[in-house]
């Protein structure tokens, strides 16, 4: 025993960054307890490291601090008077106050970085009591925490391509340990950004969009924006950080609601049934027969008129159900500007490499938002399928679609037409290069199949227990210790977990390069402005001066 310890302690003796000593095993098989004289440098969530002999070499094993308790400190009796500090009382009694506090910390072993597997391997062996522990070095963490596939544990990751700088470790000083997540990983296995309102969901999403639009990534991005929160992304154009020597510059396209059209022939019979008011069984039968007949036709530009003509051809002019259907179809489809027999959103306008298209849907009602999403997703998915199968396709590159208010498009209640295609893409889209990003403040209101398929999760402050449960139940990578952190996070702080990470990490989301467009409204200021505005304007109740003399009163009576 002494033989094995001596070289290790000799090695550690020269290290000034030793912060604690292992005391013994903890409650769980992967947990150990260590003691540290002060809390200066160790916070919960911090990564620490120790050395073990494994596979014939020295390995740095990483562990995460999960809990801290005080085992020795000044007695509570010293706190009897709030205006007299416990140190003063201690000094009076001659009790030394330097390093009085002794903490017992619990840490969970993550493992050592296996350079062959490019992920963590658990040594399945807890450190011996007395093993010195150090704070894990910044660069090592930058390399091994995200799933970057580095072949050593000290690669300079900032130079790698296709990575997104999302922020830095929360426990370290700003920009000390930068976390870069591989874009490919979350763009193919889907992404979920979950947080309560005001915690920085769309801010974080914008940071990711910025990273994906940089010259090293040049993503093909589509943002479904029901609230118009992404109108500042255009500032990326013209910024040096987004330009490349070969002339690349991201193309930010805003697609306003007036240009969002659904060609009627793109609708599926299920969508139409959902739009119509309670069609009877007979009507449904009539409609689906006619719809299938229309879809078999060469022409893709037919409208309600043609559909009714087809029904009348099949069932006769005087069929009562056809008459009732006509009335319903005209009311629901023909009078809705969203539907058009010919016009359609041209896919080549909204998707292209190096292009970020923001579909602004803020003036559409919820139902129309869901419908346009359904049809667009379905079309794009079909094109991706064709491309992968080597058929002619309008989209010959992978795409990533980001959904603000994701629970609106894939609700747990299941009453959105878009749910089906979202489920399909999240479960099968990876093979066809179609990634989804779901942003939501109500994880409990998102369809659990969709949420559980999101391989990478960025979770921010969430206090609602239902939403925490939803994350616990559907997000596999989020461990207990991560979930415990959620209520205590402040805006801009996030837990990144899942496929893009080798182990979950607490981060501070980095500053955006473009200004943020979705902050809270300056309510008081706006009230003041509105009040001043009203004071300046004459109101109708203000009587005009009909008297004589040089009146300055308002003459306008209309």
């Amino acid at each position, binding site marked *: 025993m002494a033989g094995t310890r001596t070289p290790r302690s000799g090695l550690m003796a020269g290290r000034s960054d030793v912060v604690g000593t292992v005391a013994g095993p903890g409650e769980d098989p992967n947990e150990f307890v260590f003691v540290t004289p002060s809390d200066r440098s160790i916070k919960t969530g911090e990564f620490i490291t120790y050395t073990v002999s494994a596979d014939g070499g020295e390995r740095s094993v990483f562990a995460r601090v999960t809990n801290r308790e005080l085992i020795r400190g000044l007695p509570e009796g010293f706190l009897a*008077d709030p205006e007299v500090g416990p140190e003063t009382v201690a000094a009076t009694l001659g009790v030394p106050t330097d390093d009085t506090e002794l903490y017992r910390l619990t840490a969970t072993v993550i493992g050592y970085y296996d350079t062959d597997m490019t992920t963590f391997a658990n040594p399945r062996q807890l450190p011996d009591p007395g093993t010195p522990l150090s704070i894990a070095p910044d660069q090592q963490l930058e390399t091994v925490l995200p799933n970057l596939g580095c072949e050593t544990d000290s690669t300079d990751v900032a130079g790698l391509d296709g990575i997104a700088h999302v922020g830095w470790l929360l426990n370290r000083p700003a920009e000390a340990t930068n976390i870069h997540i591989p874009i490919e990983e979350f763009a193919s296995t889907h992404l979920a950004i979950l947080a309560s309102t005001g915690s920085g969901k769309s801010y974080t999403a914008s940071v990711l969009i910025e990273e994906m639009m940089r010259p090293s990534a040049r993503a093909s991005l589509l943002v479904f924006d029901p609230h118009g929160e992404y109108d500042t992304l255009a500032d990326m154009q013209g910024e040096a950080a987004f330009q490349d020597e070969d002339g690349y510059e991201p193309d930010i396209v805003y697609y306003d609601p007036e240009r969002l059209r659904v060609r009627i022939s793109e609708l599926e019979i299920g969508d139409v049934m959902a739009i119509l008011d309670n069609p009877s069984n007979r009507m449904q039968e009539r409609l689906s027969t006619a719809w299938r007949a229309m879809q078999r036709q060469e022409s893709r530009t037919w409208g309600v008129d043609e559909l009714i003509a087809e029904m009348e051809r099949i069932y006769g002019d005087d069929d009562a159900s056809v008459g009732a259907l006509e009335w319903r179809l005209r009311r629901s489809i023909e009078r809705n500007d969203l539907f058009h027999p010919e016009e359609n959103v041209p896919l080549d306008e909204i998707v292209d490499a190096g292009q970020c298209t923001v579909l602004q849907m803020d003036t559409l009602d919820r139902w129309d938002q869901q419908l346009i999403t359904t049809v667009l997703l379905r079309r794009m998915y079909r094109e991706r399928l064709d491309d992968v199968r080597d058929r002619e396709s309008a989209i010959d590159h992978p795409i990533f679609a980001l959904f603000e208010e994701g629970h609106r498009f894939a609700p747990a209640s299941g009453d959105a037409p878009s749910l089906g295609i979202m489920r399909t893409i999240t479960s099968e889209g990876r093979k066809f290069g179609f990634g989804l990003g779901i942003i939501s403040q109500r994880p409990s209101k998102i369809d659990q199949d969709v949420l559980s398929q999101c391989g990478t999760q960025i979770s921010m402050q969430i206090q609602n227990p239902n939403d925490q449960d939803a994350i616990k139940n559907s997000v596999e990578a989020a461990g207990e210790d991560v979930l415990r952190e959620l209520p205590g996070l402040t805006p801009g702080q996030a837990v990144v977990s899942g496929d893009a990470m080798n182990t979950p990490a607490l981060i501070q989301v980095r500053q955006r390069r473009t200004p943020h467009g979705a902050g809270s409204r300056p309510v008081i200021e706006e009230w003041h402005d509105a009040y001043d505005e009203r004071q300046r304007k004459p109101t109708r109740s203000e009587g005009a001066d009909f008297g004589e003399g040089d009146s300055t009163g308002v003459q306008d009576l209309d």
Partner: protein
Amino acid sequence: MTDHSTAGDQLDLDSCVQIGSVVSSNSHLDYVVEVYKERDCERPPELHEREFGQPVFIKKTIDGTDHAVMGVIYDTQLIDPDQGRTGPRLAQEDQAQFTPGYIEERTTLAGVALLGTAVITDDRTITNPTHQMPRWTLEVDDTVFHCPDEITRSFHTIDDQIQLAYMDRLVDIAGDLGAEVIVTLIDRLQGILPEDDPNQRVLDVVEQNVQWQARERRGVV
């Protein structure tokens, strides 16, 4: 000064009231002092000058430097060798001048616990107080002096901060009376310090702590 000042209070260490002389010790820090009576010295201590919790000092010259070894009276005991005997009593009045040790006599013993040391300056007051355990031992017959309030205050003030760093040792020596002697000392210090002194609050907290711990130990709470 304050109400606690007595007629015997003077800043000159040499003219302090003599309380008694060391007759034995229980440990390095715990001495037994025989209290002077009328015939032992010119001005024997009055009752209030040798009360429970009274700070005292003993002068010692070490390597040519005068030191004051500080202590406190934490216990008193009355000795009456005649208690329970019957028979004539002859010794006392006749033999006023002759009191060798083998003649048993009524006497009062005081327990003195040592608290720390200080250096005696040329103008006969103290400086450099320390609450560390005194390294030097006292001798039999060393005179124990009443400690005036001003000296008590200087001994307890280090860098303007009140200090009672000997407390754990004192509790140990004084045993069951430990909490009481500390509370008495604190009361005395509170009387000496001005009322708006920030150290008053510190003393409050310490006093509460000591009292609470003593009650806990005695099983009251």
